[in-house]
C-alpha cells in the first residue's frame, strides 16, 4: 500500500517535471521565433504596391479599433495567402484607446484607431517614432447606419433634426408629425419608440454624435463624445452586434450601428438619412465631398475631419460616415519591420485590398484619390 502510494507520487512528480519541460521548450521556441522574424531579410526595395510579397517574411504586431477588426481579418487572410512567410496579428479586443496606448509605448507596428492621434499623443509619438513622427492613414471607410424595427414600415427616411429629437427622447412615438413629414406625409403606425445606444465607449458613438452636433446642433444639446450622453428611457447595449440584435428583437426600437453590422437583420431595417441611403458610392462621396484635411504636422499625415455643412450640402454623400485609421511611425526602429508593415498597408490601400474588405466586412471602398494619397504617404515611411 505504502509502496504504491510512493510510486504514484513519483509519477506525478515526473509528470509535473515533464509539463515544466514542455513549457520551457515552448517558451524558448517562442523567443527564438521572435528573434528570427526580426532577422529575416527581405529583397523588396521598390515602393509598396510593387513589392514581391513572396519574398517577405516576419511578424507584424498590431491592434486597436474593433470597427476595422473584421476588415483587418479579411485583409490578413488575403495578404498572407500571397505572402506566405508573413504573420500578422491584429488584436481588435484592444479597442482604439488600447491600440493607441500600445502604439505609443512601442509595442505595435501600427495601431488601428477610429480617430486620429490627438495633439498631445502626436507629441508623445515623436518620442516613440524618433527621429520621425506618427502619421494617421484613413484605411477604412464605413457609415453609421440607423436601424429600426417598426412592423409595416419597410422604408423609412429621417432627417438629421428628427434623428436628434428621437435620440434625445423629444419624439417618443412613431406616428409623430416630424417623422411623417420626413416620409412625404406617410404616417407610420403609432407605437412607442425605444432608442438603443452603446453602453461601451465606441468610435461608432463618436461618429454618430459628431454627426448630431454637426448637423442638428439646435436639437442636440450634448457635445460629441465616444460614450452615449442621453439618460432616460435609453437601452444601452455592449457592442454593435448587441445593438443590432436588440433592435431586431424589440418592436419599436431604433439604434445606430456600423453599417457592416447590419447583415443578418430579420425584422429590423436600415433607414435613409436626409433622403440618402447608405451605399458604397454614397460613402465614397462623403469622403470626396465632405472631408477636409486636418494634418497633424508630420509629413505624409492624412488625418481628416468631416465638414458637416459640406456633407449636408452634398446631394449624394451619406451624412454619417465613419473612418478608421492605421497609425504608424514614419521611421521604424527596424527597417525590415518598416518594409513589412508598409507592404501590408500598401496592400490594404490598394483596390484589391479595399474590395476584399467590402466583400468580407461590408465596408465601403475608399475613393481612388485617397488610396493614391495613402500610397504616397507609405512611400515616405522608412
Amino acid at each position, binding site marked *: 500500500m*505504502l509502496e504504491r*502510494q*510512493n510510486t504514484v*507520487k513519483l509519477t506525478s512528480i515526473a509528470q509535473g517535471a515533464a509539463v515544466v519541460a514542455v513549457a520551457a521548450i515552448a517558451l524558448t521556441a517562442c523567443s527564438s521565433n521572435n528573434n528570427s522574424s526580426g532577422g529575416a531579410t527581405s529583397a523588396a526595395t521598390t515602393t509598396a504596391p510593387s513589392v514581391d510579397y513572396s519574398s517577405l517574411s516576419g511578424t507584424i504586431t498590431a491592434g486597436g479599433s*474593433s470597427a476595422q477588426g473584421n476588415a483587418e481579418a479579411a485583409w490578413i487572410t488575403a495578404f498572407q495567402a500571397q505572402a506566405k512567410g508573413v504573420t500578422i496579428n491584429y488584436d481588435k*479586443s*484592444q*479597442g*482604439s*484607446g*488600447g491600440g493607441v*496606448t500600445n502604439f505609443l509605448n512601442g509595442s505595435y507596428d501600427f495601431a488601428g484607431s477610429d480617430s486620429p492621434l490627438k495633439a498631445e499623443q502626436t507629441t508623445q509619438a515623436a518620442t516613440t517614432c524618433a527621429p520621425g513622427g506618427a502619421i494617421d492613414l484613413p484605411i477604412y471607410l464605413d457609415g453609421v447606419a440607423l436601424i429600426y424595427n417598426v412592423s409595416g414600415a419597410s422604408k423609412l427616411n429621417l432627417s438629421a433634426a428628427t434623428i436628434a429629437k428621437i435620440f434625445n*427622447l*423629444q419624439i*417618443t412615438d412613431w406616428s409623430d408629425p416630424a417623422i411623417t413629414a420626413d416620409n412625404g406625409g406617410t404616417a407610420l403606425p403609432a407605437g*412607442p419608440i*425605444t432608442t*438603443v445606444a452603446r*453602453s*461601451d*465607449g*465606441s*468610435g461608432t458613438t463618436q461618429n454618430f454624435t459628431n454627426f448630431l452636433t454637426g448637423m442638428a446642433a439646435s436639437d442636440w444639446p450634448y*457635445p460629441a*463624445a*465616444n*460614450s452615449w*450622453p442621453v*439618460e*432616460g*428611457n*435609453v*437601452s*444601452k*447595449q*455592449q457592442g454593435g452586434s*448587441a445593438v443590432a*440584435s*436588440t433592435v431586431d*428583437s*424589440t*418592436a*419599436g*426600437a431604433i439604434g445606430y450601428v456600423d453599417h457592416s453590422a447590419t447583415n443578418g437583420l430579420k425584422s429590423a431595417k436600415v433607414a435613409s438619412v436626409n433622403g440618402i441611403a447608405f451605399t458604397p458610392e454614397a460613402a465614397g462621396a462623403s469622403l470626396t465631398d465632405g472631408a477636409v484635411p486636418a494634418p497633424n504636422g508630420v509629413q505624409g499625415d492624412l488625418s481628416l475631419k468631416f465638414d458637416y455643412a459640406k456633407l449636408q450640402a452634398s446631394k449624394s454623400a451619406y451624412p454619417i460616415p465613419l473612418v478608421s485609421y492605421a497609425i504608424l511611425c514614419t521611421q521604424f526602429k527596424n527597417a525590415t519591420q518598416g518594409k513589412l508593415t508598409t507592404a501590408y498597408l500598401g496592400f490594404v490601400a490598394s483596390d484589391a485590398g479595399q474590395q476584399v474588405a467590402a466583400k468580407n466586412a461590408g465596408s465601403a471602398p475608399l475613393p481612388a484619390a485617397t488610396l493614391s494619397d495613402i500610397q504616397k504617404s507609405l512611400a515616405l515611411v522608412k
Partner: protein
Amino acid sequence: MTDSTAVDTSAPGVSPDRNANGGAPRNSGGTTGAGKAPSKVGDIAFKGISTLAAWLIMAILAGVAIFLILKALPAITANWSQNSELNEGPTAGWANFWAYSGPLIFGTLWSSLLALLMGAPVAIGIALFISHYAPRRVAGVLGYLVDLLAAVPSIVFGLWGIFVLRDFLKPLNDFLNSTLGWFPLFAGTQQGDGSNVISGTGSTILAGAMVLAVMILPIITSISREIFLQTPALHEEAALALGATRWEMIRLAVLPYARSGIVSATLLGLGRALGETMAIAMIVSPGLLYSFKLLTDGENPQTIAANIAVNFPIAGDLQRDALIGTGLMLFVISFAVNFIARWIVARTAPDARRRTRSRKVKTA
C-alpha cells in the same frame, strides 16, 4: 470551511451513505499517513513547497493591492472638473473620483443583493433537497448537475440572458408594472410628457440579477449541501424519535447546526456576484446613477466590473487609471465581504457547536 474537520471528528455517527453522497473525501488516510513519512527529504521538500505557496499567495495579493493603489492614485487625486481627458467620454461630468465611483459601488451592491435574494433561498432549497429529501440516486445526479452549472462560462450565461431570458421576462415586466407600478421598485422611467415607460428591450437589472442568481446557485448549493450532510445523525434521529416531522427535524436539528455554514456559503455567493462581469455587461442596459427601479432600460445602476469591461478599450491613460481606481473599490468591497463572512462564522460557529453538543447530551 475551517470548522468542518472539527465537526467531523465530533460526529462519528454520520451514516456511511451520507458520506458517500456528500462526495467530499474525508481523507481518512491523511492523518495516519503523515506519521509514517517515508523519507525526511520528501518531508522537507513538501514543507518548503507548501510554505512557498502560502507566501506566494500573500505576495500576489499584496502585489495586486499595490498595483491597484499605484495605478489608481493619479485618477483619485486628479482635479476632475478641470482635467480635459477626464471630462470627455466615459468619465465626463463628475466632480471627483468618489462621485464617479459612488453609483458604481451602489450598482455593484444592488445587483448582487438582488441576485442573492433570488438565488440564495433556491440554492439552500436545492441543497436541502439533495441532502435530506431526494432519493440517493436522484441526489447524486442533481448534485452533479448543480456543480456542472458552475462550469458554464459567464459569457454563455450572458448570451442566454440576451437571447432567451430578456424576451421571456417581458410579459412579467409588463404584468409587474401594470399591477404593482405604484411601488417604486416596479415603476417605469418618467418621460418628458409625464408618462411612465418600462423597458421595451428587456435589458433590465431584474434580468441581469436573475442570471447572476443562477450563476451563484452552484457555490451556495454545494457548500450548504456539505454542511447539511454533516449534521450529526444522532441529532436528526433524536428529533425524529421525539415525534418531529421531516420539516421540524430540519428546522430543529439541521438548520441551527448549519447556520454559520449557510451564512458563509451565501457570502461566498455574494463574492461571486460582486465580481461578475460579462453577463451583466451583456444583459443590463447601464447608467451611472442611483436607482432602485427594476424594470427600466435607462435606470439600471452600472456595476464596477461591467463598467471596467465596457469602457477599458476606449479609455485614455488617465481614464484607465480611474477605471482601475473603481477596481480598487471592488477589491476593498470583496475584502470587506470576506472579512464579514469570516467574522460571522467565527461569531456563530462556537455558539452553534456548543448548542449541538449540549443537545447531544440531552438526547443521550
